[in-house]
């Protein structure tokens, strides 16, 4: 440092003032901003793995994944199968059919069975195995239903089957 500091320096007060006055002077803020932009250009920030897709793309991908999961879960879930307790006993003989809707033992044991007659569209009987074709789809079939005392249908006999 200066050797002559021990002697009064006529310039010292002026420099002190100047120093104090300069203390508030800093580089304008825009310089830092421009430098930071230059920094970003120099070191471009690597996009994280999740940055490769935009937000809507992520939404679509999420929806697709959700649908896939739901589909897989549905495919893997145990189905509650509907099982018919037993194949109804059915017999077709000369244009008439007898279909047992309950076991033969139950039908034989029924003390007070009654017979109910009705004309039933052939299409309604297709599920019971009655043959159905476009020619006879409009026909009706005479059905005689054996009903138990409690109103439970026990058997059906179909006549006029072609």
């Amino acid at each position, binding site marked *: 440092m200066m050797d002559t500091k021990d002697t009064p320096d006529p*310039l010292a007060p002026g420099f002190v003032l100047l120093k104090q*006055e300069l203390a508030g002077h800093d580089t304008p803020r825009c*310089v830092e901003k421009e*430098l*930071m932009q230059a920094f970003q250009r120099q070191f471009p920030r690597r996009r994280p793995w999740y940055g490769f897709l935009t937000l809507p793309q992520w939404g679509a991908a999420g929806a697709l994944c959700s649908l896939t999961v739901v589909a897989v879960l549905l495919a893997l879930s145990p189905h509650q199968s509907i099982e018919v307790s037993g194949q109804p006993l059915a017999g077709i003989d000369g244009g008439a059919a007898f279909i047992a809707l309950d076991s033969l033992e139950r039908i034989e044991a029924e003390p007070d069975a009654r017979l109910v007659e009705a004309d039933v569209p052939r299409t309604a009987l297709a599920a019971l195995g009655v043959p159905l074709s476009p020619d006879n789809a409009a026909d009706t079939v005479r059905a005689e239903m054996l009903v138990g005392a409690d109103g439970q249908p026990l058997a059906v006999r179909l006549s006029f089957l072609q």
Partner: protein
Amino acid sequence: MTTMTTTDPLDTDLLRQVHAGRADAFTALYRRHQGPLYRYALMRCGSSDTAADVVQEAFMGLLTGRLRFDPLRGQLQHFLFGVARKLILKVEESRGRHVALPDAGEDDGVKLELPCEDAEPLGRLLGNEAAEEVRRALALLAPHYRDVLILFELHELSYLEIAAVCQVDIGTVRSRLSRGRAALAKRLQGHAPAARPACLAN
């Protein structure tokens, strides 16, 4: 003004982090050094715009690696002063106002005449009248006197540090400082005696 505490990372650590792409390190380094650098440039060239450009250019050099700082050769702050000085010389050269710096030997024979005597008075930069008068007197000194006076009086650098910044030997710093101070005192006495700051009237 930014002050450094013992817990602050070293400039060299910050620089290493800057070159590894750490934006926060660059911000810290910039905020630590921009103030003194800007004030040096402002005093040296007298223009806030040029001073801001010089600071930006110096930090751009650090950022891009165009400027290589060697910590074994001194502090980053002094390195930046040296960079700023060269940038200002370049600006002055491009404006055709460059004044050739005398060699160390020439200093002994140089008269106290002020090479920037006919330079236009610079616009007002400081609010305080007395400080502004010192600044104007300083601005009218030859650049090689201005350099050492600013670095010694305002930034408190040692002769050795000033010699490194200005790339001259220590004897030249000593003589320039002595002559610069004499020239400054003469200018402050003769420039406007009526308006002399009270602080200088002893």
